[in-house]
């Protein structure tokens, strides 16, 4: 007997960004979510499009209900956070693009369909902050 316990697989964290089309901050939120789920933490972070939650997509609702969620809202309406809660999910951390921008004033986002370079950097900075939260959550840590 080795005495080694079986390690628990990391928990997948659901990422729900703003779906605001035609708004710069909405685009930042989505780009951050793509950076996070496709590049920084593809194994432990799962993107759930807000539009699917709004449409009542069953797979999206199940994903949100199953794991902790990080929401990324583009404006104070906080649609991503509200929809996760309405679908029975637990929001472990809600990011607001405006608050993140206040911490990175040098990255002023501009553009809608395509962000300017600074906007891309802001999205990356947001994704990196969110990645640290994902790491905490996926290993069972609590984040407020």
């Amino acid at each position: 007997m080795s005495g080694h316990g079986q390690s628990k697989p990391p928990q997948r964290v659901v990422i729900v960004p703003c779906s605001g089309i035609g708004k710069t901050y909405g685009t930042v939120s989505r780009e951050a979510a793509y950076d996070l789920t496709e590049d920084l933490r593809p194994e432990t972070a799962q993107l759930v499009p807000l539009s699917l939650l709004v449409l009542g997509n069953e797979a999206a609702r199940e994903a949100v209900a199953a794991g902790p969620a990080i929401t990324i809202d583009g404006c104070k309406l906080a649609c991503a956070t509200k929809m996760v809660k309405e679908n029975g999910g637990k929001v472990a951390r809600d990011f607001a693009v405006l608050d993140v921008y206040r911490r990175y004033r040098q990255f002023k986002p501009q553009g809608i369909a395509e962000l300017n370079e600074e906007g891309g950097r802001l999205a990356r900075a947001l994704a990196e902050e969110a990645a640290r939260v994902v790491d905490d959550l996926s290993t069972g840590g609590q984040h407020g």
Partner: protein
Amino acid sequence: MTEFLKTTVDKFTFRVATDRYYNDQGVWALEEAGRVRIGLSDFVQQRSGDVAFAEIKPAGTVLAFGDEAAAIETIKVNIIFGSPATGKVVEVNPAMHDAPEAINQDPYGEGWLAVIEPSDWAADRARLLDPQAYFVRMRAEAEEEAKKL
């Protein structure tokens, strides 16, 4: 207690506080014991969007009527606001540094910008709009904005 004139244009409702005066940019000026507190109207904050940063001229700055008193950066625009009073800035709202969203949350209260010690308030006041005049102007501007939507 502050009372308001209200109008709804499209889906937006705008309030104008009736206890103060306004310049043509929508900067309000409220006389308080010989000093003048300034801030932004509800229409200005709604039209401008969520405020990311607010930079107010520091205490000790001497302003002429119309001189830059404050600059805000919102999710939509950068705007410079002229002073509605000639005089010296004697106090700046400390919330403007850490929580400029107070402008959006409470434009006529906690979201004030600065307090000015005026040198000739009677003369400045005569150049400002009273609440009814600003209300008419603001509503016209709001209706123009609504046509663009």
